[in-house]
């Protein structure tokens, strides 16, 4: 009986020690899991950034080809003509028109620079940039845009803020390109725990399943960006009924600021 007691003590000590070792290994595994989540999140952000890079390239190419290239060509032609013309009045007119063209070139260049430059967006913040974009759309005079911001707070991480902006930018870009809408309503609901973005239009709408089957990059980009922020992205649309895009996330780590105003409403 005594020997069994001694053995039980020795075995008990061993098991106790092993339990301690197991606990230590368990802590390492749990810590590794948390690190893995961090790395996964970083990878997703990186993938979103790479996609963004590609998209930016094609956007620059399109803008240069459609606007700046043609305007510069026109500007060049106007100046060449002004050099050849002997009539002072006509020359003045041509130079005036050249001045207007160069202003347009500057305006488009400024627009591209601001909408593509992530540093500019990070520096000025999501709300300012959305407001600025809305101002540009309104200036075109073809579509009515309303912005409503409720709640207060600002995302702590500018990189995540940029991802949200890209989602909004993609949604608005899609509306302008495909929806033939007359009105866009953008709502931002900000609280310390949650961030919600709703973009609604009264355009022609589309069949979501068909659009997803076509594997259009725009929708895919929006979804991968939403995933990178562990957010929920809902697209509610039907033919002829417009479209509503609802993005919701709790990963923005909203920091308190003074109450936001929505001057554009």
């Amino acid at each position: 009986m005594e020997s069994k007691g001694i053995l039980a003590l020795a075995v008990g000590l061993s098991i106790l020690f092993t339990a301690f070792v197991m606990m230590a290994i368990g802590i390492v595994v749990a810590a590794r899991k948390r690190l893995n989540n961090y790395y996964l999140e970083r990878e997703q952000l990186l993938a979103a950034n790479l996609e963004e890079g590609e998209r930016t390239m094609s956007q620059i190419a399109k803008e240069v080809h459609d606007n700046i290239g043609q305007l510069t060509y026109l500007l060049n032609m106007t100046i060449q003509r002004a050099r050849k013309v002997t009539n002072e009045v006509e020359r003045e007119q041509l130079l005036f028109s050249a001045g207007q063209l160069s202003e347009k070139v500057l305006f488009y260049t400024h627009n591209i620079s601001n909408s593509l430059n992530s540093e500019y967006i990070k520096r000025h913040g999501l709300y300012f940039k959305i407001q600025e974009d809305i101002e540009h759309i309104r200036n075109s005079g073809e579509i009515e845009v309303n912005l409503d911001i409720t709640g207060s707070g600002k995302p702590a991480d500018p990189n995540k803020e940029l991802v949200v902006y890209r989602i909004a930018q993609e949604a608005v870009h899609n509306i302008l390109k495909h929806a033939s809408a007359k009105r866009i309503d953008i709502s931002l609901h900000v609280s310390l725990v949650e961030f919600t973005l709703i973009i609604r239009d009264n355009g022609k709408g589309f069949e979501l399943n068909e659009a997803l089957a076509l594997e259009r990059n725009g929708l895919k980009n929006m979804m991968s960006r939403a995933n990178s922020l562990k957010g929920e992205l809902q697209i509610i649309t039907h033919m002829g009924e417009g479209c509503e895009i609802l993005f919701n996330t709790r990963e923005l780590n909203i920091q308190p600021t003074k109450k936001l105003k929505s001057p554009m409403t």
Partner: protein
Amino acid sequence: MYYAGIVFVLLFSLLPFGISLLRWKTLDLPSRIFSVLLGFVFAVECVATFSAIRYQNNLAIYNVSGWLQMALICLYFNFSIYCFRKIHLGIYLAVASIILGIVNALYFEPLGKTNTFYLTYQAVLVLLLGILLYTELLLKEGYVNTYRSVHFWLVLILVLFNSLTLVNFSLYDFLADLLSGSVYLLAVYIWICGVLANLGFTLVFIFYNRLNPTYGK
């Protein structure tokens, strides 16, 4: 009953070695070293059994083989821990372990007795090397699927075996004195731990192809 126990233990040391041999082509270098270690353990068990039956004592065989086992374990860690591989620390530790074993046998504990000092050193070193491997696993850059790593499981089993037997090996002589006639109970406990460890190694090598030898995704 005694012989049945011996056959049982021998079978369980042969099992992981046999499975690892079947997987030999797919094994990475540290796993191959581990397979050699398992083969060596099986050979030692065979020789020790023969010696126990023939000469009624097999302690010398266990003691000498312990040095080589430790050297193989150090070599295994040398190739599975990246910072060890860079400076060949595992190789130095392997050589040091053999020298330490010889010095211990010459000056402290004769080969005919249980070398508790050396067994303690062996268990503590394995635990320390295990901690180092897990630290490296924790600090590794990028995504690491712990459960998919072969070396995570091999080292886990090694660490558990050594933590379960550390107290018994370190205090073997003391416990043997206290237990007097029932010392076989201690041997049975160590046997059970050995059998469980071998069962674990067998499972790792059975699922080797589903696991990943590196710490990748």
